[in-house]
């Protein structure tokens, strides 16, 4: 270790080799994305003549405009944003008090209640979808935006609860005691001590759950029907129909538009997302 530290030349050579090897392996992950970008800006004529691997000579964004029209993308985008925002907000609102209760009070059977509330996270959607379909129909919420938002809120609750509770456990007891001495009730402590301190965890949970709902496919596919309610994941399937799929650049452009918002969110909230993945999956 020391010998290496004294020999900077050897380190940089080794580093160069290892970095190159890793970069080559990583090409397997980057290449499909680059290819999609190239395909999306190529004209069909170019695709026919030069093939999928050639660098586009006259890049054009026409495929994006066409994909937008064909998919009625403004409706899909609005819906996806609504589901992700409203579903995540609902999940956070629903999870805040259970997280407070299960982290700072000795509730009889609290451990069991916690685990029961978490099961929704692990449950394959297929195991609840048939009765849920029926419940929503009886509540007149089938093929309705509000129905799907409620389902997303409920099924987003466990992950948010896990993240928020893990964070609230770490808030020092002294802060709460001080507030209690000042005459704060449970509501007061929650509003004036817990809520202001828990904001970073809320941000983590929000970013993570937003991406989850944005990418969700199964529930939306089953519970929705009319074109004006579909989110992007379901609406975009239209481009896999032969008439659109055979124009190559259109599906490529469509899937890039579909994923752009979460990629931007990923870049902006990278720390939160990776931290949330870990505390949501391993630490609790």
């Amino acid at each position, binding site marked *: 270790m020391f010998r290496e530290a004294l020999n900077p030349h050897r380190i940089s050579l*080794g*580093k160069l080799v290892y*970095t190159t090897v*890793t*970069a080559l392996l*990583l090409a*397997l*992950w980057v290449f*499909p994305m680059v290819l999609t970008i190239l395909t999306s800006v190529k004209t069909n004529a170019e695709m026919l003549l030069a*093939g*999928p691997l050639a660098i586009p000579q006259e890049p054009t964004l026409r495929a994006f405009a066409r994909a937008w029209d064909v998919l009625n993308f403004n409706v899909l985008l609005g819906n996806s944003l609504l589901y992700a925002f409203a579903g995540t907000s609902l999940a956070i609102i*629903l999870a805040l*008090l259970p997280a407070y*209760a*299960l982290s700072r*009070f*000795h*509730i*009889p059977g609290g*451990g069991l*209640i*916690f*685990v*029961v509330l*978490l*099961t*929704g996270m*692990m*449950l*394959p959607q*297929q*195991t*609840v*979808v*048939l*009765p849920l379909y029926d419940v929503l129909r009886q509540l007149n919420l089938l093929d309705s935006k509000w129905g799907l938002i409620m389902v997303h809120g*409920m099924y987003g*609750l466990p992950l948010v609860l896990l993240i928020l*509770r893990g964070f609230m456990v770490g808030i020092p007891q002294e802060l709460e005691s001080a507030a*209690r001495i000042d005459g704060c009730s*449970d509501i007061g402590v929650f509003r004036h001590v817990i809520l202001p301190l828990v904001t970073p965890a809320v941000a983590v949970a929000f970013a993570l759950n937003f991406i989850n709902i944005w*990418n*969700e*496919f199964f529930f939306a596919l089953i519970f929705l029907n009319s074109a004006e309610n579909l989110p992007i*994941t*379901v609406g*975009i399937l239209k481009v*896999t129909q032969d008439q659109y799929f055979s124009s190559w650049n259109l*599906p490529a452009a*469509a*899937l890039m538009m*579909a*994923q752009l918002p*979460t990629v931007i969110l990923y870049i902006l909230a*990278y720390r939160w997302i990776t931290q949330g*993945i*870990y505390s949501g*999956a*391993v630490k*609790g």
Partner: protein
Amino acid sequence: MTGFAKSGKQRKFATARQGWLPSMWRATKRHWFVYVGGIILPLILYAIFIGYPILRTLYLSLAEWNGLDPKVTMVGLNNYRTLLDDPIFKLSFVNNIKWAVLTLLFPVVAGLLFAVFLHSGKVAFAGLFRSTLFLPATMSLVAIGIMFSLILNPIFGALNEGLRAIGLGFLTREWLGDPNTALYTLLFVFGWFYTGLPLMLFHAGISEIPAELFEAATIEGANGLQTFWYVTLPSLKSVTTVITMLTVITSLKAFDLVMVMTRGGPFNQTSVLGYFMYTESFWNYRFGYGAAISVVILLLSSVFAAIYLRNVAGESLYVS
């Protein structure tokens, strides 16, 4: 209502002396805000949206129902008997097992190796590489499915084109149309999506290993492989358990890629339980039969979910 808050210890003591129900009632009255919003309301919502659906699925699996008719005919274990003789069920079941095993063997192991490699300090831009590898895991499988359908297309796809360009034209095929390759092609795409998740979880796990352990190993003269085998791996035990359970459950849920890329074809070779359940219920209107498939998924996943929850929420069981 007493004016001051008792400490947790005192409250627990009271529970032991006066019985569970009366003490719960008093605590509820005193902390009504916490109990109503934090326990009772979420449990009611849970009962409507998760608890009832699970029980109802169990019930429906014993029935024949077209999903619309108010009449549900009970048929006992008939659906399960039919399942055992259904070749598509067997195929889907085996495919789910292949899905889990191969995902554990390739993307999960790759994620572990990348995590160790990128943490060793021997690679420049490790953070950038990690965030790039994790990017696919934040994308929807629908978009990824469309992306790879383009690349794998037998006529204009880049993969066959590339193989021809480097003189490996004999390897070109209809990747998703050939019954021998379709499932493995899907699994490759799934692996492409999945690798980032174990990478991130293993990375976080490795970062929590005390540096002294690695230093001690270096002083003892351990090489990279020995350090990995005797220091890194044993410290990652609980992360590994969590990832294994998560991977198996994710495999049992598999649906999106199959729906977008193959629709179970060719000849049901890429059917999985999640997709089979969907077609039987929502295309053939056999809700009872679909429910029976759901119960199989539920039983298989609950074992792994139990182990997972014990690891994730384990210590909290003792706290509250």
